[in-house]
């Protein structure tokens, strides 16, 4: 970690108040993103991967609250006022959402939705904003961009809408893009195109990217580092090649075993991790993964393992050190 981190999340806890009581969607989570790097955040639905970053950007639902710190260039995003936060959102930190079908405003033209970002953050004229929007649409390879500016979102395909979302995120030249499941709602072929585009953005603009996904294949193709989340906590984190080649946490190991590989022998049934992700309202006292873990010890059920460094920028939250190399 040579350079100072761009975003440093420190002891973040995200709590939701529901009719059934309070639920910690994210517990005591710390991570950082350096300038220009791509951090993959992987986990099942409900593991808290999206809410971590929603909380950092002040986008939690009304019943959610965040504790801890989220330092961006030294400013704690969690304590900033609305105006200061709005000056950062969409300008220095941009977000791309999962569902391009519903994430654009249906009653505004693509051109207006793009332009308003520049008009708001840069104070440019409408004509100038339109011009820059056009350039950005060309850059993300939207065909026939001039015509698209006058179109409404429902007149575009899912892939094109996601390109518009990406163009919108890039307009102000952000230092950090948070992409929340950017390819999940898309066809497989379109997924590949969008991932190529994100890779190009990362490589040419040196923008830091947080890639939130449940798809390990997406992480492998794009991320420098990966954080694996389970039940609101990071269970393993480190360099993506190292983690994938030599996973140290039983959950990571299970996830990787679940992923079908082109180069592996076809042996019939796919591997699955037994059991279900835990209900966050009733977490076990010890390790949240213990009930599903093949390598579980008695101690796992009593004490929650802390995330500890393994050297070389690797971390894991598991008390077992004797696990053999993944087979």
């Amino acid at each position: 970690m040579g350079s100072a981190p761009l975003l440093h999340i420190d002891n973040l806890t995200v709590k939701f108040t529901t009719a059934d009581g309070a639920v910690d969607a994210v517990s005591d989570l710390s991570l950082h993103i350096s300038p220009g790097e791509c951090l993959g955040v992987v986990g099942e639905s409900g593991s808290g991967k999206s809410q971590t970053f929603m909380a950092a950007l002040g986008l939690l639902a009304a019943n959610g609250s965040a504790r801890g710190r989220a330092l961006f260039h030294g400013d704690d995003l969690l304590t900033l006022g609305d105006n200061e936060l709005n000056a950062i959102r969409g300008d220095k930190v941009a977000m791309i959402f999962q569902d391009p079908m519903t994430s654009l405003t249906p009653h505004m033209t693509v051109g207006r939705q793009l332009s308003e970002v520049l008009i708001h953050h840069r104070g440019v004229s409408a004509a100038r904003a339109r011009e820059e929007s056009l350039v950005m649409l060309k850059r993300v390879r939207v065909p026939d961009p001039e015509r698209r500016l006058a179109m409404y979102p429902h007149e575009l395909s899912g892939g094109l809408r996601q390109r518009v979302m990406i163009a919108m995120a890039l307009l102000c030249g952000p230092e950090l893009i948070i992409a929340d499941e950017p390819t999940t709602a898309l066809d497989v072929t379109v997924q590949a195109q969008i991932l190529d585009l994100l890779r190009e953005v990362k490589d040419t603009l040196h923008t830091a990217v947080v890639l939130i996904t449940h798809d390990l294949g997406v992480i492998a193709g794009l991320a420098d580092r990966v954080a694996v989340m389970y039940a609101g906590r990071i269970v393993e984190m480190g360099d993506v090649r190292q983690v994938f080649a030599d996973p140290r946490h039983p959950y990571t190991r299970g996830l990787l075993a679940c992923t079908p590989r082109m180069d592996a022998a076809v042996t019939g049934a796919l591997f699955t991790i037994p059991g279900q992700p835990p209900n966050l309202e009733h977490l076990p006292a010890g390790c949240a993964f213990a009930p599903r873990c093949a390598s579980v010890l008695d101690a796992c059920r009593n004490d929650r393992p802390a995330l500890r460094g393994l050297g070389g920028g690797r971390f894991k939250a598991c008390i077992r050190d004797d696990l053999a190399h993944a087979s």
Partner: protein
Amino acid sequence: MGPYFARRVVIAIPTLWAIITVCFFLMRLAPGGPFDAQAPVPQEILVNLRARYHLDQSLAVQYLDYLGNLARGDFGPSFKYKDFTVTELIAQGLPVSAQNGLCALLLAVVLGIPAGIFAAIRQNSFRDHAVMGLAMTGIVIPTFVTGHLFILIFGVWLRDTMFHLPAGTWNGGAWPNRILPAMCLALPFIVTIARITRGSMIEALRANHIRTARAKGLPFRLVVTRHALKTALIPVVTYLGPATALLLTGSMVIETVFQLPGIGRYFVQGALNRDYTLVMGVTIISAVAVIATNLLVDVLYGFLDPRVRYD
């Protein structure tokens, strides 16, 4: 869009015909007749009266005559207001009712929508409950009570202050005379619009694209007005269609309380007096208003949501 609306206007003709037909025969089914309410008249006079208004002919002939006259724009003579035709009565009363209704409509929209938005963006806070509680009070008090209360307050108690307002009469449409009836007519509509707006705005603010707009760093005020309002207004516009028709065709209660020479009172008086032609006249005016406002609502849908297709 053009052909769609041309078709809608054409479809309106059989709709109107059906309303006229049903109304015509329902009126005749009701017991009694236009001349029963008065002191009994000699048999010869009654025969003459019935002949004068063609009531001695068969119902079918009367019906066809009525349709024929209507096609020429003649609503026929009033049975009760004997010196007037129904056309004259409507021509005198409708402008008063429509102007008062229009003022009330403007008040309802201008006050109801912002109140609803205000409550929605402070959902479940004290201010939300305060606004909505006040609104509930507005809707549970009947118009004939609020009307008299307004008269008591602004017409009597504040008589010697600058807030004094005339307690009634149209006075040729003088502005001070218009305020109380318009306020009173608008009150339940303000409340309903506020409640609909609150609900639909809360719903609209939950949409995914609102999260996108917030993530873009737009101030919340812009997120609400630019990205959520149009979606939130769709249910309001749906309600405003029939509400506008209702407001423009006058209110019996308001026109009685404030002594306005509108057509609202004809709905009730006409029916009580078995004034067949007058009831038909005001019913047709209402029907046309409902059909026209519904058409207008459909145009507004297209403006609020570009995904609406007219074909």
